[in-house]
């Protein structure tokens, strides 16, 4: 009997591994197919613009409000910590670097995965469940070109813009708290920020990060929707996988990118 149990255990692990490898292979082929069909998404630009509206414009409220509050909290906590060492005037550079390098891309990415990624997965999953994708195929229209590629690129284009807006609102929130509420000198706040943040590497790296996060989240979102079991439960599980997988991918990629980007600066 123990031998049976061990064999069952091995079989389960083996099956799980095989499924994971097969799914990874399918995801890779899916990504290549999306890239192959991407020219169609730009050839008919209105399809992609529509998805930029759904993924980007409709995410503006949550991104801007979150950015504002994150910036305000950064302002409060940052001033409190810096002031202990007599460096309260450095609030501008502290807030700016935190937002542009890390918090902007990462938090905006997490919010994007929750707001837009889940919506894309649910939409494509429901289209599959209600046979809309099959209907499209039977009309000789490839869903990868008509549905998936525009949503993928809509997300990829929206994400860096949303991250930039998040950072801008964060800086504004920190200004409100640091300068208007606490009384840090306005000129010092902006001057330190201008002196301490450079377009290359700080801003550029933030843009690269947010673009990479946009690619990861958008790919996960469209793949999970396309691969969802065509049932209510299947779509629900796929949506959850998008949010969880997208968020973990952002955090893991952020670490990897940070190591590569800032190693040359002597900061890592």
């Amino acid at each position: 009997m123990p031998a049976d149990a061990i064999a069952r255990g091995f079989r389960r692990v083996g099956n799980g591994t095989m499924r994971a490898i097969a799914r990874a292979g399918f995801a890779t082929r899916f990504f290549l197919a999306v890239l192959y069909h991407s020219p169609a998404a730009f050839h008919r630009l209105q399809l992609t613009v529509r998805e930029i509206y759904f993924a980007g414009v409709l995410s503006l409220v949550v991104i801007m409000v979150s950015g504002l509050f994150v910036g305000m909290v950064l302002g409060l906590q940052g001033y409190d910590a810096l002031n202990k060492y007599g460096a309260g005037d450095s609030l501008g550079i502290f807030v700016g670097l935190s937002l542009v390098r890390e918090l902007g891309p990462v938090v905006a990415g997490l919010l994007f995965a929750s707001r837009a990624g889940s919506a894309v997965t649910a939409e494509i999953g429901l289209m599959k469940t209600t046979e809309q994708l099959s209907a499209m195929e039977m009309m000789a229209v490839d869903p990868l070109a008509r549905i998936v590629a525009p949503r993928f690129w809509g997300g990829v284009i929206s994400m860096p813009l949303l991250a930039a807006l998040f950072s801008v609102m964060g800086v504004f929130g920190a200004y409100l708290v640091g300068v208007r509420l606490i009384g840090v000198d306005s000129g010092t706040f902006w001057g330190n920020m201008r002196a301490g943040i450079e377009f290359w590497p700080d801003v550029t790296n933030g843009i690269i990060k947010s673009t990479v996060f946009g690619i990861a989240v958008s790919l996960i979102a469209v793949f999970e929707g396309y691969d969802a079991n065509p049932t209510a439960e299947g779509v629900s599980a796929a949506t959850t996988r998008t949010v969880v997988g997208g968020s973990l991918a952002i955090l893991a990629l952020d670490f990897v990118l940070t190591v590569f980007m800032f190693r040359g600066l002597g900061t890592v």
Partner: protein
Amino acid sequence: MTAGHCGPRKAADTIDSLFFAFLRPLHDASTPRPEAAPACAVANAIEMAGVSFGYDRRRPVLRGIDMTIPRGKVVAIMGGSGCGKTTILRLIGGQLRQQSGRVLVGGQSVKELTREGLYALRRRIGMLFQFGALFTDMTVYENVAFPMREHTGLDEPLIRDLVLMKLHAVGLRGAAQLRPSELSGGMARRVALARAIALDPMLVLYDEPFAGLDPISLGVVGQLIRQLNDALGITSVVVTHDVYESLKIVDYLYFVSDGRIIWHGTPEDVRHTADPFVRQFVDGQPDGPVPFHYPARPYVEQLRAG
């Protein structure tokens, strides 16, 4: 009373028949259909010979299906749930590929078609899905216009006229600006039918077109299938388990059970056959060749086992 209704109804029927007659030349000459010629040359719209298919090797869904569907006919494929009816449609449409046997549509072997060839074939096939499968982010008008916009390159005013004609054919010209969520089940099915005939196909596949419809909608959809088939000169394959409605509109029926064709004949043959499966199916008997009980251990033995 009857006479009072007869006049307007007759007039409406005349208008309808004129309308369908107007559609006919459209089928021949309107939208570009470069591959239409080979299909016209063959007598049978669909031929299936020895077709076997299974999603995995241990559980075959279809086992040696032989079926011939002549051009211009309405043919029903009937059978219980899960017997493989929809799989046959998917093989015809090239969404699935058989493991053995041959599926010819318009004289072309579906399995051997390249992707481009398959898409060219699909442009000549309309399909009505079980619940319509309308695109929920589009209006009724946009749904019907969708295949035209994707494939024809026609000007928008011409597309508008064609869409209105298709919607008029299914009686829903007035619903053009509604969203799919605002339609009843029967209306959604009719819009899907208008979309299925948008490119004037040679063949229309119907997957359970009567499922979940009220008696009036059921009659309307049934009549539309027959009328459109005759007016447009197309071939229709109707997968259904609605015996009563099917017998009224189809030319021929195939009965599928356990992945095999077990009986076929005309509606008249169906009414008179003594075949136990067909009788059970047509008369709706709970037990027979299709057993009421799912296979299990003997009842008493299982109860005693505790």
